[in-house]
């Protein structure tokens, strides 16, 4: 809903007279319909029409795979609703899917990296690059300290048991592929799991 700007009494009085219904009513318009119609109603349009980009999304909740249309304006999402073309949902959505816009715009979302140092009692914001560098170093350190090339019986294993990764069922196939490829194929991690078993 648009916030209505505070106006001076004079301009309000002027508007009142300009949009006064009584004369329109006297001229024969219905007091229940046309004569009562206000400027707000005359100018009203659905906000979807303001979108400069409309893309197709797949609902981020369950695995039914409903299609959604994401409407954005000036780089911000203005609404998400069901895609009428999808043979699965044909425009419908369940309560979770219908709340996708609310999720994207939730005030509980964070927009910067938070860091909690060992034994600290607080979060501190950190630059993204700093965090990425630090995580890469920690990963390398832990891997190097714990890597096993062969078992005592000579069986090559080339793994580390000291780094684990959880998650993937909410992520894209491409992301899962990259996770498995880097963590397993590159780093030799074996504790790689997602929500499929929980």
């Amino acid at each position: 809903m648009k916030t209505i700007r505070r106006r001076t009494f004079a301009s309000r009085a002027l508007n009142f007279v300009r949009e006064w219904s009584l004369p329109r009513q006297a001229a024969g318009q219905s007091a229940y319909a046309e004569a009562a119609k206000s400027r707000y109603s005359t100018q009203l349009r659905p906000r979807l029409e303001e979108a400069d980009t409309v893309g197709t999304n797949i609902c981020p909740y369950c695995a039914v795979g409903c299609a959604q249309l994401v409407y954005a304006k000036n780089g911000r999402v203005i609404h998400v609703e069901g895609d009428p073309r999808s043979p699965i949902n044909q425009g419908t959505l369940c309560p979770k899917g219908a709340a996708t816009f609310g999720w994207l715009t939730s005030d509980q979302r964070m927009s910067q990296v938070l860091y909690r140092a060992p034994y600290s009692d607080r979060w501190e914001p950190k630059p993204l690059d700093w965090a990425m560098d630090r995580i890469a170093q920690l990963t390398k350190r832990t891997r190097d300290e714990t890597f096993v090339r062969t078992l005592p019986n000579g069986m090559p294993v080339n793994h580390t048991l000291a780094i684990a990764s959880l998650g993937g069922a909410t992520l894209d196939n491409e992301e899962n592929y990259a996770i498995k490829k880097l963590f397993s194929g590159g780093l030799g991690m074996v504790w790689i799991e997602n929500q499929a078993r929980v």
Partner: protein
Amino acid sequence: MSGNFAGTSLPPSAAAPYMGETYYGRPAVKASPFDWKVSSYIFVGGLAGSAQILATLGDLAGGPQAGGMTRTGRWIAVGGSAVGGVLLIADLHTPDRWYNMLRIYRSTSPMSIGTYILSGFAGFSAIALGADLLGMKRVAKAAQVPAAVAGAGMSVYTAALLSATSTPLWAAEPRLLGVRFAASSMAAAASALSVVEQAGQRQDTARTLDRVALAACAVEMAAGLQADRAYRRKGVADALEKPELRALDKVGALAMGAAIPILCHGLNQVVRKPSRTLSVLGSLAALAGGLALRHAILKGGNESAGIPENYFRLTRPEPPDRQPPRVASTGERERIAHHGERPYTPAATRVATSLER
């Protein structure tokens, strides 16, 4: 308030008499947001409107001794419309938009009708008083007639305002409410003027006014008693049975608003030397009672909107007197709410319960 069921094929389960089903005891209609400001306005508006009528009648039919009363009445009319207007605007939830009341006219809306009645009344009353004060007697005489006609509207349109809602207590008896508000307004106006006359040592006029008040209170009493029966019969009286409202309704509206004034003024009519104290007592009681009546009706209405059984009894197609006058007890409602049970007991039990009463 029963509906018309011509051509309706209601399945038997839905057509059977109302048996007390509710949705977890939740209200089925919303209570008005009106509070004491509106009930006070109804009283003040009625008082002002009827005062203008009495002032005009005094001016036209009374003798010179009524001159003071006419002036007082005009003051009350103007003062009442000013106070009333302030009360009404204060009651708005977006008060700086009050002027939108004048944007359109809707004959189905007593509030819209009332807006124009109040505007007209305030305008003509102001002219009448102003002219009176400035000594322009003919202008005052000319303005007072439309002012008095509007005053009649002021006295009664508020009954339409409340009746034309879905609030059980208000909607149940529109005619009786109209009669009661009219009579109460007239009683209040006569009483207020009488008190002023008494204060001005004009006992004759006061005595005349007391007779008017007596007549009005008698009408109010009769209508009040009838309404009481009708509310019970239609099953919408539960709110008025609550202790605080019961006091307001019975002691305030009925006793003080009607019974005591009738007693005082009636006694004064039969005794050789009318008592000033009795007159003032009767007048003050009528005034207090008039205010109590409006508060009781307003608050009772708002409360009745919160009792779904009251609304549902009023909105069943059967004649109301065939309905069992029963409200689910608080305990029963809790049981329904807390155990997710069917919100009604089997029909057979219900009938038995209603017969016991």
